[in-house]
């Protein structure tokens, strides 16, 4: 008898616009899930091509965070993702931390490849809440705990 394939669990991808989003889109495309996930990102350049997405003000300005947190919370509670993926910055912190606490979601964090030598703020905060934690430069491994893994770089490939 043919084994019945189970349905894809809902995946939410949360990250800041710009390079974080470019990396996220490379990742979801490489995973073959780019059209099957829900995105949360900053309002701006992405809102006319990302179909299934929530938008916040964001874009690295901390003063937007008090307005953005309720929106991020609303989106994750409404969508109830089983898996949350982030490639970084404030928005990703909020989604991963709250997703872990409230929804017990599985969480995947990939440190942005812009972080070559020093851990990012997002990475440091998110680390205890991430089930899977990747850095994109091998020397960064020693700045994090045992959970951190290196598995290549989304710009340069294997370096």
């Amino acid at each position, binding site marked *: 008898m043919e084994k019945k394939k189970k349905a894809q669990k809902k995946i939410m991808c949360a990250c800041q616009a710009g*390079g974080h989003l470019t*990396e996220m889109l490379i*990742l979801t495309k490489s995973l073959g899930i780019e059209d099957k996930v829900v995105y949360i990102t900053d309002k701006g350049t992405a809102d006319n091509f990302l179909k299934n997405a929530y938008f916040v003000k964001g874009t690295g300005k901390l003063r937007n965070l008090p307005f953005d947190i309720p929106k991020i919370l609303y989106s994750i509670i409404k969508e109830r993702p089983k898996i949350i993926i982030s490639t970084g910055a404030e928005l990703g912190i909020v989604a991963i931390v709250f997703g872990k606490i409230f929804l017990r979601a*599985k969480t995947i964090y990939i440190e942005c490849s812009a*972080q*070559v030598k020093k851990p990012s703020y997002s990475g440091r905060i998110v680390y205890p809440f991430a089930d899977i934690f990747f850095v994109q430069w091998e020397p960064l491994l020693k700045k994090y705990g045992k959970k951190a893994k290196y*598995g*290549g770089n989304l*710009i340069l490939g294997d370096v």
Partner: protein
Amino acid sequence: MKKIFVTVGNDYHSFHRLIEKIDNIASKIDAEFVIQYGYSDYIPKNIKQSHKFLDREEYNKKFGEADLIISHSGIGTMIDTIQKKKKMLLVPKQYKYGEHFNDHQSEIAEEVKGKYENIKVIYEVDGLENEINRFLSEKVDYPEPPDIKSLKLVKDIKSFIDNENQK
């Protein structure tokens, strides 16, 4: 005529050092300029095709048509350059000029420099005009873009998701 596309990313720190310089030298260079100046405090006066932000489609079109990309050292632009095999002149935003909150743009530029013949890095904009002219006429090899699907990072995440889907 050769085409040059200038972009300084999505970050809110102004990069007027580069935008102003390019606006001032553009007329002396035999190329058509398109510029996305983002959050620059300086708005180009001389370059006609200047935009705060292009929408994604238009951005990709201009990027695709360009013979040379001039950019801050941002991840997004770098990925596009490598994937689309373009010549790129990187000018990292620097902390000492108040252009970013740290110097990660220089760190990543140093890592990429030397690995890709089609990517050049300059830190100061004084010699930009010569640099552009030289680079435009130079013949370079474009390395194959990396096969992202084969990375351990992607494979591990894929198997993690597949595994979750089986639960």
